[in-house]
């Protein structure tokens, strides 16, 4: 966090100064470790075992916050009898299908829930604590099985009609979630943690004690994570593990608690909320699916929920359609629902690149991203770029994704020839944040308006200008078309006030996002939205950003003039709420769990919830409210159920539906790992997504021929001094000089083992390619003993590429693409490689060098891509083996 969120880290230092204990769990000793109380080096890719060990410690020592767990989580819920845990199936759960490599989750359902009725229904994402892709799941969908793919928003699953959940408040029923959890994690002992993670039991014990000592009624502990946890083929389950632990300890919805997703770019949160993502529409409404959503009704019926706030999905969807198509959207034409294009499967970025390589995607816009450096398997990215008809790159500088045809690595090796690359490239200079008005949404879901300071220079233009003008031109060129295909463009509500330069007014766009009521008045809360077409709203969760007709995101009441929650600085969705699920900061009766940790509480005199923050609860719903049998929407959520976006108002320890790789987190090895899974016969996440093709060869895993060829683990990460793929730092002298070269971090032991010379060069090799880096020998890298081996880990910051002031090979040349199946996010944190002293071969010699490795390892396009490894392929994985 000190490395990647340095200014946010001031609050950690502040907490430390007040006595908080800071523990840093990371394979490397980083600038965060340097000021932490404890650094726990562990093997990259082993955190589920580590956090699972903590869960086991909590459960076996009875350290959970029992009142919280009983009242606020689904610990007491009974799971159906068909469920078989991964403990009993060698690492698989019940429901695995060897043909499709996909789970059928029906056996994971709660007891008494009408499975038939809920099959194929909208299911939940990876828990609402994880707001978006790089921080967990913002929606999931099963790519391998288009017929049954599911689309999720941010809320909980529908539990199906007639759902009658069975519970055991004593938490003793053998099939209640609490007991299922206990059994599932029973083997995650300190000894197992040592075996899997390389963390000595004594050190593990220090963490366990510190965490439990600082959790409970009087104290809370927070987890901060980012892509060290999400960039794994089990990334969503990493976050789930933390969610389970924090729910058990009562650290969710309370001040000083939480699982903080420290997100990435300035408006990564905003671009997830108002997504430029294929599977969702603004406000986490799913993109309609061709096979499931014929009409608005079926769309809402399949994705909405009878209970909780998703019950109003129709209002959110119709208001969005009104914002998109204005007067053209009427009740008669289903509010233009048919204008929405449909998804049919996984259209995520790596799938698109695969299709580009196959020549299926002629046109490509890149706006503020640099996949030729930033995305895994950079060669795959460039092969896609080199096979387009046209490419528009909008950026501040000529990034590698714009110049691949001129100086990409494939030009040097001769794999590609400039004169044979058909791609037509438009590089358009972009306007900077100082040159445009608009809002960023930062990592705490807070929108902040930035005002334009100066006009953009030369041909530089904002994306707002570009898309508005492009839309205008398209509509002009298609004007008069009678082709039904063009109706959505021609009917689009595309009238924005512009200034002298043709720049649309960003405030007008934000107002459209906020939404308007029947009279055209700006709305103040999403509770005002209706499904009858009388309201429009571009993103329902952002409704209220223009409350009272005021740009709330532009509020800048100085922090020192407010309470510590600072509600009058910017605006946070939803409803300017700063801590989600903050009803959980009070006990079931609505009293603070303790004075130290008071936050939101029930004020009997006023008959409402009060506190320094906006209560995440209906303000006047009494804590003792019990929903009547037939209640729907929020009325079905009880007065002591804080998790109001879940259909049952509970925090989910066990996820009966919504995840495609299991209802509970399980330790799997990274898809490239030097060790056999010490816990299960199943080596890696069976549901992970692999990409085939010669451009994505995988390293052998234990048991394969050539398993010793790539004996080392490498992990990739960031440096404080650079930014991501480097477009905003490698071209900036003041940043480039601080970290002027691509380097690898190795321990003195590994340096000795391989003869690496400090300050010299090393070549790092995988089945994809080989790159070179300067050598930084450092005690901050420690060899670990895990999986019966000494594991050497190599650190590679991934910011470099051939362009700019500070140049170097891109770490992503090395990476393979293997994705988390819930969110299609690649593993960048734990892979295998070889390292050799000296610089890499140049030109065609590089290809021969890597080919030699592949030949020695017998590596083919199929290597490492086996899904299930629990036994003979013919064995049934249905039913219990115990």
């Amino acid at each position, binding site marked *: 966090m000190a490395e990647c969120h340095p200014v946010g880290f001031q609050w950690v230092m502040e907490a430390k100064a007040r006595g908080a204990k800071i523990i840093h769990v990371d394979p490397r000793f980083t600038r965060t470790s340097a000021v932490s109380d404890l650094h726990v080096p562990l093997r990259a890719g082993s955190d589920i075992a580590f956090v699972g060990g903590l869960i086991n410690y909590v459960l076996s020592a009875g350290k959970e916050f029992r009142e919280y767990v009983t009242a606020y989580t689904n610990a007491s819920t009974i799971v159906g009898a068909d469920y078989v845990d991964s403990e009993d199936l060698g690492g698989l759960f019940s429901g695995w299908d060897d043909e499709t490599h996909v789970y059928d989750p029906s056996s994971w359902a709660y007891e008494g829930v009408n499975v038939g009725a809920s099959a194929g229904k909208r299911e939940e994402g990876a828990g609402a604590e994880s707001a978006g892709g790089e921080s967990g799941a913002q929606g999931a969908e099963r790519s391998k099985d288009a017929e049954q793919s599911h689309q999720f928003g941010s809320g909980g699953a529908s539990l199906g009609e007639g759902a009658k959940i069975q519970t055991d408040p004593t938490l003793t029923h053998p099939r209640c979630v609490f007991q299922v959890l206990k059994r599932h994690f029973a083997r995650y002992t300190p000894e197992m943690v040592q075996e899997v993670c390389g963390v000595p039991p004594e050190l593990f014990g220090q963490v366990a004690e510190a965490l439990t000592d600082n959790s409970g009624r009087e104290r809370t502990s927070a987890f901060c994570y980012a892509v060290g946890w999400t960039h794994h083929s089990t990334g969503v389950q990493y976050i789930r593990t933390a969610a389970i632990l924090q729910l058990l300890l009562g650290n969710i919805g309370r001040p000083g608690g939480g699982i903080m997703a420290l997100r990435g770019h300035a408006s990564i949160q905003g671009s997830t909320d108002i997504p430029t993502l294929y599977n969702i529409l603004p406000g986490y409404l799913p993109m309609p699916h061709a096979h499931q959503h014929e009409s608005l009704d079926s769309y809402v019926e399949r994705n909405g929920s009878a209970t909780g706030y998703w019950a109003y999905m129709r209002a959110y969807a119709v208001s969005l359609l009104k914002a998109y198509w204005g007067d053209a959207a009427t009740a008669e034409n289903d509010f233009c629902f048919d204008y929405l294009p449909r998804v049919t499967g996984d259209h995520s970025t790596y799938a698109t690149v695969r299709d580009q390589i196959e020549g299926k995607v002629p046109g490509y816009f890149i706006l503020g991203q640099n996949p030729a450096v930033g995305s895994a398997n950079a060669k795959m990215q460039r092969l896609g770029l080199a096979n387009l008809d046209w490419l528009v790159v909008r950026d501040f500088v000529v990034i590698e994704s714009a110049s691949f045809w001129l100086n990409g690595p494939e030009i040097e090796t001769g794999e590609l020839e400039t004169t044979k690359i058909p791609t037509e490239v438009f590089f358009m200079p972009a306007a900077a944040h100082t040159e445009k008005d608009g809002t960023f949404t930062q990592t705490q879901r807070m929108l902040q308006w930035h005002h334009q300071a100066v006009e953009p220079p030369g041909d530089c233009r904002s994306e707002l200008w570009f898309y508005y003008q492009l839309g205008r031109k398209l509509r002009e060129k298609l004007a008069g078309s009678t082709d039904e295909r063009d109706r959505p463009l021609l009917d689009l509500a595309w009238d924005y006030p512009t200034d002298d330069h043709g720049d649309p007014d960003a405030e007008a766009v934000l107002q459209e996002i906020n939404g308007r009521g029947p009279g055209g008045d700006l709305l103040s809360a999403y509770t005002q939205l209706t499904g009858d077409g009388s309201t429009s709203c571009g993103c329902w969760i952002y409704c209220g950003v223009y409350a009272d007709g005021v740009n709330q995101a532009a509020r800048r009441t100085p922090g020192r003039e407010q309470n510590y929650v600072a509600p009058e600085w910017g605006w946070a969705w939803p409803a300017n709420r700063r801590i989600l699920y903050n009803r959980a900061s009070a006990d079931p009766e609505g009293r603070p769990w303790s004075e130290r940790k008071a936050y939101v509480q029930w004020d009997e005199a006023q008959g409402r919830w009060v506190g320094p923050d906006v209560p995440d609860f209906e303000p006047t719903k009494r804590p003792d409210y019990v929903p009547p049998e037939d209640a729907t929407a929020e009325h079905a959520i009880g007065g002591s159920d804080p998790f109001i976006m879940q259909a049952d108002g509970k925090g989910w320890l066990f996820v009966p539906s919504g995840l495609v790789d299991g209802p509970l987190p399980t330790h799997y090895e990274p898809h490239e790992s030097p060790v056999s899974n010490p816990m299960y016969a199943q080596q890696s996440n069976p549901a992970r997504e692999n990409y085939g093709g010669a451009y994505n060869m995988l390293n052998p895993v234990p048991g394969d021929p050539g398993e010793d060829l790539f004996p080392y683990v490498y992990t990739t990460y960031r440096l404080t001094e650079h930014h991501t793929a480097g477009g905003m730092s490698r071209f900036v*002298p003041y940043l480039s000089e*601080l970290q*002027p070269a691509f380097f690898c971090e190795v321990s*003195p032991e590994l340096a000795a083992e391989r003869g690496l010379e400090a300050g010299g060069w090393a070549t790092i090799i995988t089945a994809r390619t080989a790159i070179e880096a300067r050598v930084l020998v450092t005690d901050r890298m420690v060899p670990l003993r895990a999986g019966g081996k000494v594991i050497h880990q190599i650190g590679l910051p991934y910011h470099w590429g051939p362009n700019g002031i500070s140049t170097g090979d891109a770490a992503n040349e090395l990476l393979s693409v293997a994705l988390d199946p819930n969110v299609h996010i690649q593993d960048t944190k734990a892979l295998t490689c070889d390292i050799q002293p000296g610089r890499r071969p140049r030109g065609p010699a590089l290809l021969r060098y890597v080919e030699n490795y592949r030949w020695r390892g017998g590596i083919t396009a199929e290597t490492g891509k086996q899904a299930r490894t629990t036994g003979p392929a013919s064995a049934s994985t249905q039913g219990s083996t115990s």
Partner: protein
Amino acid sequence: MTQTTANHLFGPLDPAAEAGYPDHPPRLGFFTDTTVCIGCKACEVACKEWNNVPEDGIDFLGLSYDNTGSLGASTWRHVAFIEQASIEQPKPLGAQEPGVTGRHAPVVDLGMPSTAPPGTTAGADGRTEFRWLMSSDVCKHCTHAACLDVCPTGALFRTEFGTVVVQQDVCNGCGYCVPACPYGVIDQRKGDGRAWKCTLCYDRLQGGLTPACAKACPTESIQFGVLDELRERAAARVEQLHAAGISDARLYGADPTDGVGGAGAFFLLLDEPEVYGLPPDPVVTTRDLPSMWLHAGAAALTLLAGVVSTFWGRR
């Protein structure tokens, strides 16, 4: 302890009053608490942005995370990074536990003279405790500033805030200040010729603003303020750290009776100064100036006598 009586060249004094500002504002300076530094280098960048200091070379030094190397004409803040494996005593600041016990560190040539390579300092017992020290160095704005005193043009001068500043409209690039500084701070800029160093943001102080580096510092490792108050705060911080068992904590440059009369920018360190590239106990060269002039005078008279005697009497 070497005792010398205070005078214009040595010992505690109020530098602004000494330099002819009868009613001057309180002396301003920095307390850099290295125990909370996260090595982010915001101080380096913020300084350059404010002062338009040019980029100082895209060279990979590989000294841990330090690619700046040292203070210089185009680097007025420099963050040092020191990786220490130690077996002397527990270092509570942040510890790294080895996963492999009995670690024997082979010697690796780091291409770095005079420092033990990582892994060798722990001896045969293997690595026990590890810490990564970071410290943002800056001009000390000495009470007795050698750079200032030797400057022949008056380009270097004492401001009313007690700070030491090069007036770029005056400096003729004689370069004399460079070897005078006991900390190796000030330097001449290639191509420009003049001497440059931290001005303690003299222009910002004129407007009542915090210096750029201190303002940016995310963790308040760099604390700016009235020097007397900073000294009190620093003493309290050291006590707090000692009470917490961090016996390594010590102040550097905070003592107005030290060899430079106390630094206007002083530090809380966790190890000996030389570990951070600082001189252990510097004394301003001008303390000995009377002696130097005296010896020079004696030598001059000797020369005169020698010449006279060669002509005396004989042919």
